[in-house]
């Protein structure tokens, strides 16, 4: 993975020094809260319901064991012994004190991490496929470009005061695990007929109050032109994006109001004027970065591993875990291990410092000391030998990290909701816990099969409910929390926005409603048809009937 050189180190240290000065000015009363706010936000510091919250960037979701250990130490030193992994592949601490933030950031800088631009109206942490570099279906590892984008977007002079926040996602594989179609900019790698690599550039996707699927701005952009082209897209947005209404300020509204053709024409006109005098420098930098992502040295292994097959046959729980949590690796004899942070009744995405230390150790022992964070709030060990899977599973199990539900109904994504968040209108976590407990039976989860549930505690949609196969949105009606249910959302290569089924439900009725939906699906599905395909085949009607007949 990428390592900082002297320049990256200096950049991050200077930034911490600058923030230390700003915090001192704030604590000393020289800066008002209004003036301090955008400065702290640019450094990932939010003021939440009960305390300051710090969001730490995990660039494109890749972590080393040393970094994970440091994140665990920070949880122990500055927080209450746990951390929360987010849908942006980042990590959040809910309880650090403002006066401690500069020291905390220095501790992060020691392990080449920072919190730059995890908030604010700027380019946020670039996200990608959690299986980048190891996925069996990949065209190319997208992480070198993600790192290039990280550097390019860090304190960008032109794009630090955009109309609104800006999120970029990148996929190097045809199966989209990075949700590129619901990002401000999405990048999808393709290879053309001549064997050259290029980017499909999407723009104007997003969730929030007005969910939209992105349009394709360019079908195939030569790889070397990427930064120049992004500059053109960003400039059109910075100049013309709406600033009169916070809720209409994302690029999706600009794309929608201009129309796809007019937006494309504006971008192309801007791009034509740019010229690209710095392409050589960018290409050299990309090559330099790419060397850090050279694949590790893999052992030559057989495609099948007999002891592993035997263990699966002998241990049903292990077999379930393999089925849901282990994925195909591009190298024979290896597997990708997905670690669920969704134990039954737990808080989605939370990990204790103890669990984080365990994951760091296991990654070192079994997976080239590398860990990934997923946008579904789970962790990944990308490079595990098939022959190590059983031992690894036992060790994960003893740290309560072996819940066999990745991609299943128990693998719920939820925002922090009203338990923490100042914007929330309803709680998300208790709903996630309720549903998770209702479907505790793993055999039943596996029988239901692939199904995503996403819960947001307000219309800002941080829990990505629009793209959950089942989406749950928490709202407030005259002081009472109630929950709207949507069906049919998806964030993959066939992205779609879920449809609202009907009137909402009280918090204690949500688990029943989900159960009704699931039972209706089981009655309708053909063979192994996954939930989303059944839904697309039959539509919302049977679900509506089942739900509102019994309600």
């Amino acid at each position, binding site marked *: 993975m990428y390592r900082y050189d002297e320049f990256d180190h200096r950049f991050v240290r*200077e930034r911490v020094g600058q923030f230390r000065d*700003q915090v001192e000015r704030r604590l000393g009363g020289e800066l008002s809260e209004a003036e301090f706010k955008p400065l702290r936000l640019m450094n990932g510091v939010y003021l939440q319901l009960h305390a300051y919250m710090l969001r730490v960037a995990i660039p494109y979701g890749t972590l080393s064991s040393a970094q994970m250990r440091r994140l665990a130490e920070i949880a122990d030193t500055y927080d209450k012994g746990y951390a929360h992994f987010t849908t942006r592949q980042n990590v959040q601490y809910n309880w650090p004190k403002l006066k401690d933030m500069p020291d905390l950031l220095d501790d992060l800088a020691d392990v080449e991490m920072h919190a730059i631009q995890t908030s604010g109206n700027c380019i946020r942490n670039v996200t990608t496929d959690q299986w980048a570099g190891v996925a069996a279906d990949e065209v190319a590892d997208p992480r070198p470009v993600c790192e290039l984008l990280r550097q390019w977007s860090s304190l960008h*002079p*032109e794009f630090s005061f955009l109309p609104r926040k800006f999120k970029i996602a990148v996929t190097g594989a045809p199966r989209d695990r990075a949700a590129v179609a619901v990002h401000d900019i999405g990048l999808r790698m393709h290879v053309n007929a001549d064997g050259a690599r290029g980017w499909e550039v999407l723009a104007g996707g997003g969730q929030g109050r007005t969910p939209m699927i992105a349009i394709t701005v360019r079908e195939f952009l030569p790889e070397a032109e990427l930064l120049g082209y992004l500059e053109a897209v960003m400039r059109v947005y910075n100049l013309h994006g709406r600033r009169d209404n916070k809720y209409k300020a994302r690029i999706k509204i600009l794309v929608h109001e201009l129309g796809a053709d007019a937006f494309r024409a504006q971008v192309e006109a801007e791009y034509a*004027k740019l010229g690209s*005098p710095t392409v050589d*420098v960018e290409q050299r*930098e990309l090559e330099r970065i790419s060397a850090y992502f050279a694949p590790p040295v893999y052992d030559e292994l057989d495609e099948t591993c007999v002891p592993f097959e035997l263990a699966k046959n002998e241990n049903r729980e292990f077999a379930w875990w393999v089925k849901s949590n282990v994925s195909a690796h591009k190298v024979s004899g290896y597997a990708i291990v997905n670690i669920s942070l969704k134990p039954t009744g737990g808080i989605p995405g939370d990990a204790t410092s103890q669990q984080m230390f365990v994951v760091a150790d296991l990654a070192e022992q079994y997976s080239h000391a590398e860990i990934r964070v997923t946008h579904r709030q789970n962790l990944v060990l990308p490079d595990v030998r098939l022959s190590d899977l059983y031992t690894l599973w036992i060790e994960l199990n003893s740290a309560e990290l072996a819940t066999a539900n990745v991609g299943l109904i128990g693998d719920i994504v939820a925002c922090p909701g009203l338990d923490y968040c100042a914007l929330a209108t309803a709680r998300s976590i208790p709903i996630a816990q309720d549903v998770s407990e209702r479907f505790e039976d793993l055999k039943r989860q596996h029988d239901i099969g692939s199904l995503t549930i996403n819960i947001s505690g307000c219309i800002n949609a941080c829990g990505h409910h629009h793209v959950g196969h089942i989406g749950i949105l928490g709202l407030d009606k005259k002081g009472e929390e109630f929950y709207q249910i949507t069906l049919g959302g998806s964030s993959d290569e066939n992205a779609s926005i879920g449809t609202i089924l009907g009137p909402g439900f009280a918090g204690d009725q949500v688990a029943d409603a989900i159960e009704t939906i699931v039972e209706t699906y089981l009655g309708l599905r053909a063979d192994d048809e996954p939930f989303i395909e059944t839904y697309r085949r039959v539509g919302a009607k049977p679900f509506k009937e089942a739900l509102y007949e019994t309600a």
Partner: protein
Amino acid sequence: MRLLKNGEFFEDTWLTLDNEEAVPQGADILVSAERLQAEFGTLMLHNGRLGVVVANDRAVDDIADYLEVIDTVVLEFPSFTDGRAYSQARKLRGSLKFRGGLRATGNVLPDQLAFMRQCGFDTFEVNGRFGLDVWQRAVTAMTLTYQGGYVPDRGFAPADVWSARAGNADDTLRSDFEEIWTA
């Protein structure tokens, strides 16, 4: 208001004229883009320096034809979170190749100064709230950038970190900045 340029404060001797106001002989004047377009024939004969104020919802391409005789362009930051003028500056210095003075006005704070300079601003209209030391510290707090930036009289240089890595350490814009501001 006073002006900050090259690390020093100056009194602002420019006169900002509204669209109806008579043009005083010999003064350095700032007019709106509308007035510039409407009265260019007479304004270009004016015997003081000529500058134009471009609102931040207006395309800088509108004044492209006049840039040769314009001494200064003024761009506005109605609030520091409204970042349109960064892109306007970038276009003026980039594709429009404007090499005259570029002034930032409005809510200009020390914490934005480095961004503004990188985009091509060289003059800043500031109030008396912050001393010179605060402004200088703001410019020198971060000594590296990952993006290209404007170098006076030269146009845009590539990202200085990337240039330095490629062995062109002298090519960095930040070293030029520091020279100017600490001279």
